[in-house]
């Protein structure tokens, strides 16, 4: 297969595109189902997120008079495309290794910031005051969690680079390969502070309950999403589904990518994804309440940042 064609396929069908979208929607369905079971309810069918998408696709898109029409309509598209590209960058250990042409960990880091920025732009382009509140909250949250995640990425890259005899490597393929031969970072005590910092980044980037203030429906009426309806809202839902898979898969790549090759590797990866989604997303979001935005901001500058700095320092020193 020619290279441009296989690159295109990796973005449109597998592992990004259709595959990651179906996976993301399935994860959302499992999330809602497990949350319901934890509250002793029956819960919606597993396909509910997909059903919601079908319904949204048939509804009318409404653009407010005060909105900036092109930006308002383009923002969700940019978000979905950025997330699909990001999904093509994350390796599935033993199954899929991204082409270096697509980019490395640094590109992925920038792509991960896109959904937040898109929500900010969407909120301000909609012209609604709630969108503006959502904008400012999203920005504060991003300021909080971006610094720890940079340090986490650098710590992992340094550790891999040192292990290989080089200084630092940002190639996700090499990070996965290194851990598969030398043992996962999950079981490496030197990496534990970094792991803690990453686990605080996870819910904040995904925008789930302790850190969902930008879209809090009881406070700011879903903030940036308030004015969106129909297919555009569906695009935001797709973006959030793909983003869940990307961030969780990044966690697996950075800390525990060990898996056999072939179909078994895919199965192991899916099980890890499911466990991480249940423990890191569902259980967390049903067991705590929403934090206040200023408290969350202080929290990120206190704990995750401290863990990330300690983690980076130990990697540099040891």
């Amino acid at each position: 297969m020619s290279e441009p064609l296989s690159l295109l396929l990796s973005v449109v069908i597998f592992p990004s595109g259709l595959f990651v979208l179906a996976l993301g929607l399935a994860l959302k369905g499992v999330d809602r189902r497990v949350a319901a079971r934890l509250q002793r309810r029956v819960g919606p069918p597993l396909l509910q997120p997909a059903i919601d998408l079908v319904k949204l696709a048939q509804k009318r898109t409404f653009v407010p008079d005060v909105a900036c029409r092109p930006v308002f309509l383009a923002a969700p598209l940019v978000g979905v495309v950025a997330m699909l590209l990001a999904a093509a960058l994350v390796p599935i250990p033993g199954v899929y290794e991204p082409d270096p042409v697509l980019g490395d960990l640094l590109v992925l880091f920038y792509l991960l910031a896109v959904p937040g920025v898109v929500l900010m732009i969407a909120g301000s382009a909609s012209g609604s005051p709630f969108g503006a509140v959502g904008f400012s909250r999203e920005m504060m949250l991003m300021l909080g969690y971006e610094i720890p995640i940079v340090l986490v990425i650098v710590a992992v890259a340094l550790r891999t680079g040192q292990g290989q005899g080089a200084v630092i490597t940002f190639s996700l393929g090499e990070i996965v390969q290194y851990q598969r031969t030398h043992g996962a970072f999950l079981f490496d005590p030197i990496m534990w502070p970094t792991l803690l910092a990453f686990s605080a980044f996870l819910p904040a980037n995904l925008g789930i309950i302790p850190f969902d203030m930008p879209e809090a429906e009881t406070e700011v009426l879903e903030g940036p999403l308030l004015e969106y309806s129909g297919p555009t809202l569906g695009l935001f839902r797709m973006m959030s589904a793909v983003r869940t898979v990307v961030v969780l898969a990044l966690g697996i790549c950075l800390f525990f990518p060990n898996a056999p090759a072939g179909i078994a590797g895919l199965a192991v990866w899916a099980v890890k994804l499911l466990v991480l989604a249940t423990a890191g997303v569902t259980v967390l979001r049903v067991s705590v309440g929403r934090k206040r935005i200023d408290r969350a901001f202080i929290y990120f500058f206190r704990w995750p940042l401290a863990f990330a700095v300690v983690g980076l320092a130990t990697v540099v020193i040891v």
Partner: protein
Amino acid sequence: MGLLSRISSRSPWLYRINAGSCNGCDVELATTALIPRFDVERLGCQYCGSPRHADIVLITGPLTVRVKDKVLRLFEEIPDPKVTVAVGICPISGGVFRGSYSICGPVSKYIPIDVDVPGCPPRPQAIIEGIAKAIEVWKERL
């Protein structure tokens, strides 16, 4: 009814309007009838914060003079097809506030109501049945 509308009919999103309610019915809606004690989520329902996302509108309260215009404007912003459910006795008849100078209800004078769920407040089971009936009405309008 086509396949796509059959699929869509399993995803009714709920929107609550408080038209000057005493909050009793709202508590029933927010904490018992729906998530987390009893479960309408199994019908595919979910609360949405924005009127633009809504399919089924739940109205509580007797429609006081002060909120009338705002409720009507909000109702206009909800896209068709929509189904309206009056939750509690207040939006249906005025309840204990009937005849008061400060209410201009019943709500059905201004807004077409499809399903009535009387009670003060109604039992969660009654609210869930009302929503199930509203879904049936909604299916025909899709």
